[in-house]
């Protein structure tokens, strides 16, 4: 099993953001995570990536516990992510953004980290990531001037430079134009075909239904359903969570 989440709980000042959430994800699988606003989806990502520590519960990545690991240690193990509200390094160009993540194999050694980072071999490899994510026209532009859709792709490119085994995508399609949207869907599918596990938080039901074979539904911090899209679509608890109870 690639990722196992067991009885995960998170409290913020007495407020339960996550309550006994358990699920697992396999290599090459796109697991959809859906739920109304405030269901705890982003909190879940923040815990898996080590930004928050859970109040209770366990997380195993390839059998290794992620609890008490710092974000950089988790990312070096092969878990990378994007942010719902994009956080590229705004004053660095696209190529340099990707290089930051590429450096994860140099940072642990003091001797290696004083090497210059713009080396031909490295730039070539970064170029393949840039091409894959369709960022060629923007490679040397400062990220702050780019439109949202491109910034989102920069985040994915950066996450891919970590050579992840598991990729956490937090609403990657939000605010995209139709063609960008179609390209992104194809990219996500391609990533999973390489054997990378993908956790996908998404509000767009079309995306989730198309890409995911399995979906986890959160509501008010609890898992209320898990299963294939067809089943989720007709699950009364899910319909209730989204639309409210019938009077």
């Amino acid at each position, binding site marked *: 099993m690639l990722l196992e989440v067991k009885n995960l709980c998170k409290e913020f000042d007495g407020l339960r953001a996550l309550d006994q959430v358990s699920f697992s994800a396999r290599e090459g699988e796109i697991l959809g995570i859906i739920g109304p606003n405030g269901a705890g989806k982003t909190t879940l990502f923040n815990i898996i*990536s*080590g*930004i928050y520590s859970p109040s209770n519960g366990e997380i195993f990545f390839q059998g290794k516990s992620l609890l008490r690991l*710092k*974000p*950089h240690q*988790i*990312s*070096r193990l092969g878990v*990378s*992510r994007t*942010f719902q509200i994009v*956080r*590229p*390094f*705004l*004053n*660095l160009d696209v190529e*340099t953004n990707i*290089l*930051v*993540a590429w*450096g*994860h194999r*140099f*940072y*642990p050694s003091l001797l*290696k*980290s*004083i*090497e*210059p*980072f*713009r080396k031909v071999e490295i730039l070539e490899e970064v170029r393949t990531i840039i091409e894959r994510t369709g960022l060629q026209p923007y490679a040397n532009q400062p990220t702050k001037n780019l439109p949202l859709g491109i910034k989102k792709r920069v985040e994915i490119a*950066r996450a891919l430079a*970590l050579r992840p085994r598991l990729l956490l995508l937090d609403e990657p399609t939000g605010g995209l134009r139709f063609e960008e949207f179609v390209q992104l869907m194809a990219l996500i599918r391609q990533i999973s075909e390489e054997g990378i596990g993908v956790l996908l938080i998404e509000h767009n039901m079309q995306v989730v239904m198309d890409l995911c074979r399995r979906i986890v539904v959160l509501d008010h911090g609890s898992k209320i359903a898990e299963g294939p899209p067809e089943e989720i679509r007709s699950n009364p608890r899910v319909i209730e969570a989204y639309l409210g109870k019938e009077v």
Partner: protein
Amino acid sequence: MVSGYLITILITITIYAMLAHSLNIITGRAGQISLGHSAFFGIGAYTSALFYTGAGLSFWLSVPLGTIISGIVGALLGIPCLRVRDDFLAITTMGIVFVVEAVFLYIPFFGGAMGVGGIDPPKWFGREMSKPEYFILLLIVLILLLFFDRRLERSWIGLAWSSIREDEMAAGTMGVDIVRFKVIAFILGSAIAGLAGGFYAHFLTFIMPQNFGFGQSIVILCMVVFGGIGTRWGPILGAIILGILPEISRPIMEYRTFLYGLLLVAMMRFQPGGLLGEESLLVKFFNSVGSSVRGKRIIKNASRS
């Protein structure tokens, strides 16, 4: 022959340039504000002074020792600074300078308010180094530091610093060990400030706690911001301009601080990135001059052929 007055100013400016450069590593490159930089200037000055006067070590040993100890203390004092950010970091580092100044002032070992005297200028080839020679030594050290800075900026360390400066949380999830790289910045910045302190002690031959107070921290920070934070040459230019300013404004002595303040306010209003920073009018001006000269040359060559 260069006058003694001029050489004194040149040496002072070179020491300030080293200080501004060292603060730029912490604040410019790694993005960690520090209002306590003069503490490390002081630690370097006091350690090398005491190693010289107390332990009888030569200038060539006491100054490197001051540098190393300042770097170690920088690492230790950097640790409480790792957990705080922005305005809290500013207050914490401010606290450091008050503590260090108080230690120098109230612990008799450090000479108290009387400071430490009897520090001699360095000797070489069996005689005392002259002031112009000392200036050249400092200049060479500064140039070496700037070469080292260039190397660092282009290294993975420099890249990691940029990412921390831009967005600490995102940097962490991209595999950057935030604590490690912040500590590296604190160690290097503090050590170089300590080096400048050692040079300062052997230049003044007499040091007092007041030389390393909070006001001094602000002066160094002003030089960095004025010249262009995060650039290689900005802090150097800032040190030169703000170092010369008090000298050329001697005739209007009373208005000196007024002028100083006015300049900084105008700078923040019109060039917040500093003289050589982002959107720099100075850089734009030189670029446009450069390109128009190049343009004319091209036209000339074209008309010739």
